[in-house]
Every structure is written in structure tokens, then in C-alpha cells.
């Protein structure tokens, strides 16, 4: 009995040593894309193992700093403080843009409002505008959904739509993008922001205008690609130079034509 256990343990250790395992962690926005890419990559390169987990951009970068992941996925740029933390441990981080993502503002399908300006969005998310009738809808209170502060989407939306102002304290923070879609679909007065790939039939993506109402643009892959839709962000992979040799094949695979085709299939916007 004991012998078999020892033998099995030895076998497991030997097997683990052979397979090159990569750990990828971070943004929930990038998660479905990275999973599909990893599957395709593993199918092509037998013997490579990639595990992908979510948690939020901040979580991924934190894990990269603490050396518990090989690649950090992020839907925002690394913050200065995080860069300094990487530097403190004597490493340099490498940044690669793997795709773009449009951020859609979604409301309940029964909502009469179908377009908003950036200024109106700022008012709604900072708590200045509290009722839909102030932006041309019916008389009902606005229920605002957002992500947790660990999310890159949270930071990106704050920087680019709220003009760097803080969210109102009454904004409800949801643990996942899927939860925002679910809540918006079942709450009449709801508004929230999600990646374009998450927009489903049971929510309505609204048109936004960043030029004070002159032109409203609906989010789609096409409008994001021709840059007429304003809320588009790059999605990043971060790794440290020390592990470049191990992770480079996978990163290159995503940047290849084959990898970029998966980007398109998953509802994201390709690099070119």
C-alpha cells in the first residue's frame, strides 16, 4: 500500500516536471477570451498546459507582483504604484495589447431612454442625476450598477467617462460582469456598464455621445473598429522579463492571425 503511494507520488512529480504549466490570472473581461485562446493553443501544442483564472485586473497584477502568476490579464493600464512594486522586486514588466474591447452602457429593455451624452452618464454615475425623467425617460429612480474596485472596468469607466470623478457611494458594486447583466435585466430603472461581449438580448445597450449630443453612436464591433464609438479600451497581458521565454509562445499565438480570429469570434475587436 505504502509502496504504491510513493510510486504514485513519484510519478506525479515526474509528470508535473515534464509539462510546461503557465498560470494566467486577472481581468474577468479578458477571461473568456484567454480561455478560448488557451484551449486552441493547447490543442496545437500538445504537452503545454495553461490555466486561466479571473478575479479582476487588480487581482491579476497583484498576483504578478507576488509571483503567483506568470501572466496578468488586465483591462486597464498598470498603475504607477503597481509598476513601482514590480520594480522593487528587481523585475521589469512587459506590456502587450492583445485586443480591444468596447464598453457598452446597458439599461433594462423596457426603458424608453436609448441615448445619453457623456455629461449625463457622469451625472448618473456620480449621483447628480437620480431620476430617469431628468434625461428624457419616465418618472422612475435610477438604479446604478457598477463593478467592484478590483475591476479594470471600474477604473477605465471612471477615468474615461466620469472624468476621473469618484462614483457615488450609492452605486451598487457587483462581483462579476454577469451579475450586472442579470440585475439590469430584472430591474426596471437599472443602468450599468459591461464589455460588449457580454451584451445579451435581455438588456439594451444605449447609444452614447461624447460631443455633447451632436452624434450618438451605438456600440458594436464595427463602430468600435472605425473609432466612431468612444468608449473603447485596450486589453493587456503583463508578464515579467524573467519568464518571457516561457510565455512568449502563447502571447505570440494570440497576436497571430489565428489568435486574432478567436478574438473576433469572442466579440472583441482585433488589433488591426
Amino acid at each position, binding site marked *: 500500500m505504502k509502496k504504491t503511494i510513493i510510486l504514485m507520488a513519484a510519478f506525479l512529480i515526474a509528470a508535473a516536471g515534464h509539462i510546461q504549466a503557465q498560470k494566467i490570472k486577472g481581468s474577468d473581461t479578458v477571461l473568456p477570451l484567454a480561455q478560448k485562446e488557451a484551449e486552441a493553443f493547447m490543442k496545437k501544442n500538445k504537452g503545454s498546459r495553461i490555466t486561466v483564472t479571473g478575479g479582476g485586473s487588480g487581482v491579476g497584477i497583484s498576483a504578478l507582483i507576488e509571483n503567483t502568476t506568470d501572466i496578468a490579464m488586465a483591462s486597464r493600464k498598470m498603475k504607477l504604484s503597481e509598476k513601482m512594486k514590480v520594480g522593487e522586486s528587481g523585475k521589469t514588466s512587459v506590456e502587450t495589447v492583445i485586443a480591444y474591447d468596447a464598453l457598452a452602457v446597458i439599461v433594462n429593455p423596457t426603458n424608453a431612454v436609448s441615448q445619453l451624452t457623456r455629461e449625463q452618464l457622469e451625472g448618473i454615475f456620480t449621483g447628480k442625476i437620480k431620476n430617469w425623467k431628468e434625461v428624457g425617460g419616465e418618472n422612475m429612480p435610477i438604479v446604478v450598477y457598477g463593478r467592484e474596485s478590483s475591476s479594470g472596468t471600474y477604473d477605465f469607466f471612471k477615468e474615461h467617462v466620469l472624468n476621473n470623478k469618484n462614483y457615488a457611494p450609492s452605486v451598487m458594486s457587483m462581483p462579476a460582469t454577469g451579475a450586472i447583466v442579470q440585475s439590469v435585466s*430584472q430591474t426596471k430603472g437599472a443602468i450599468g456598464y459591461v464589455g460588449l461581449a457580454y451584451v445579451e438580448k435581455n438588456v439594451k445597450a444605449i447609444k452614447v455621445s461624447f460631443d455633447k449630443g451632436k452624434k450618438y453612436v451605438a456600440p458594436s464591433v464595427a463602430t468600435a473598429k472605425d473609432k466612431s464609438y468612444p468608449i473603447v479600451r485596450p486589453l493587456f497581458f503583463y508578464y515579467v522579463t524573467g519568464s518571457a521565454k516561457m510565455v512568449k509562445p502563447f502571447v505570440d499565438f494570440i497576436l497571430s492571425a489565428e489568435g486574432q480570429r478567436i478574438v473576433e469570434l469572442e466579440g472583441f475587436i482585433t488589433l488591426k
Partner: protein
Amino acid sequence: MKKIYEKAAHAVLFASSTVSIITVLLIILFLFREGLGLFGQKPIEDGQVLLVNKSNPVNKLTSDELKNIFDQEYTNWKTVGGSNDSILLFRIDDIFNYYTEEELAGVDTNMQLLNEKVSELVGKQTGMVAFIPEKQLVLNDKVKTIEVEPVTVSGFFGGELWFPTSQPAAQFGILPLLSGTLWVSLLAIFIALPFGLATAVYMAEIARPSVRNMLKPVVELLSGIPSVVYGFFGLIVIVPLVQQLFSLPVGETGLAGSIVLAIMALPTIITVAEDSIRNTPRSMKEASLALGATHWQTIYRVIIPYASSGITAAVILGIGRAIGETMAVLMVTGNAAIIPHTILQPMRTIPATIAAELGEAAKGGMHYKALFALGCILFLITLLVNITVEFISGGKRIKR
């Protein structure tokens, strides 16, 4: 030979209990050491400074004032005790609004040059406040840095804003989180206790053995369901129900959280309470019945008082589960960090906050320490509950 076994058994028991006690003490020590480090620190991100014109009379700002300034709520220095001059915000990306590409040529490669330009700019603009990295700060005689007031104990416990990642100054006010936790868990226990006790009495005293044998595994099965499943059930079923029932604009409320928590605390309460009720000696029950008491009178005058210490244990364990529960609450209470006035508002609890934010908090940073301080508070609340219940049930035992 027997003696050696005896001795060995004693030693093993002693060693394992010592190890577990020391582990608990070390965890508590660790928790408090990390948590207490928060106080006295400046709530500004590491490696960043605030730069103003030398002629500005303001030297010190609270984090609250800073948040209002950078949210453009305060637009004049008069509001924070300065001269009558409008506030001009500057973040590092704004540099291109003031200098042309040619003037800034080479700043990408030379941070020094960039910071010289920033200092030059702040020296020219009397009302400007710049939020920039400290690393290569170039001070000239026209600018100065502004101090940020450190986090105080009263600001931590009395603060009404929780913005742990806000820049330039984070806000660590736990009042909304603390009140959210108390509202949700207290209501949960108020819902769970009557249901749990009633079920326990029914199962122990009234139900036929065949019914009981079926009911008991079902109840125990409830405690085996992962909390995420409860959370999802709450989000899909209870949240819309609460919303329709009270015709609220939003269903993610403290009440939804309390209901989910109550369901989760039920198996613990039922199992522990039922066991203690069944432990009532047969002689006591029969004595009561022999004196002419009805079955119901026996239950509430003899059995429940006898089992009270077991029932209080059930309550402690139930509250423990309710206060510490994370995932399910995270999904259904809406997590808005506001001070609730009714149970029908979104709330943010302490465990949900720790679970949602600890992953991204850089080790040793302000946010990390603030979350540990929250952990300390959670620990103290549970300790307080345990001591109180212990005290109450102890008093009862003496009376009897």
C-alpha cells in the same frame, strides 16, 4: 506497556491542544498587527505627492477635502481655508494641454524633464494643485508640497465614505460597512431563530420517527450546499421577489441578504438545537407529564429550559455563520457603501468587502491594512456575541 500508551496518549492530546491554541493566538496577533498599522498613515498612494504654488496659504488637507477637490465639488481655495482663487486640477496626463509636443520633446524618455515642466507650470499657476509621482520630483522655489492628514481612529470608525482606491486620497470610513453588517446579520438571526427552533422542537418531540428520519438528512443536506449556490438562488429568486413584494426600485437589498443568510443558518441551528432537545432526560419529561402537564406545557416549561444552553450554542453558531458569510451576501445585497436607513436598501457588509477587495490590495499597502482592520472588527463583534450569550446562558444555569 499500558502505562507507556497512557503517557503517549496524554502527550499527544496535550500537544495537539497546545498547537491549536497557539495557532489561534498567532492568527489573532497577525490580524491585529496588520490592522493597527493603518492608523497614523497618510491616505495618499505610495510614491505620489501633491504640489501647489508657494503663494498658496493652504499647507494641509484632509482626505475628505481632497476627494471633494478632485471630484470638482470644491472649486475655490476659500472652501478649504485658502485665498479666494479657483482650484485648477492637474494630473500627469494633462501636461499636453499646457505644453506642445515640441516643448515636451524627450519627456517620454526623461521623467526628470517632465517633472521640471510640471514644477514650472505649478509655479506659474497660483490656483493649481498637481497630483504627480514623487520619485523624481523637482522642487523649485515657487512650489511646495501639501501634507495630507493621516488616518485617525475616529475618522475610521466615524467616517461615512468608503473609497479605498480613490485617488489622490483614499477614504476609509467604515460606518456604512459596520451598519450594513449589523442590519443584515441581526435580521437574519431574527428570521432564522423562530423557524429553526420550531423545526427543532417538531423534529425532536412531535414528528413520527419515520418523518424525522426523512427530515433530518434533508436539513443536513442544506448545510452541504456551497454558499455561491445560495447566492445565485438569492439573486435569481429572492431579489426579484423582494422587489415585487415591496414595489422597490431595486431588489438587491439588506432584506434579500438576510433571507438568504437565514436559510443558510437554519441547518446549523436546527441540528444543534434538536440534539440538545433530544438530550433532555426521559425522567424529566415523564415527571412533567405525570404531574398532569400537557405535551406542549412540557415542551416549553421543561424541555426548552433544560436544553437552553444547547439552544444558545445553536444561536451562537447561527450568528457566527451569518456575520461571517461572504459569497452569498456579496451577490444579493447590492454592496453599495451607504449608511442604510431601512432594511430595504442596498448594503455592503464587512465580509463581502474583504472578499471583494483583498485580492487586489497590494500587500502592506493602506488598503490591505484597512481590510485587516475590518477583519479585527469582525473578530471583536463575534467575540462580543459569544461572551454575551455565554454570560446569559451561564446566569440561567445558576438559577436552576
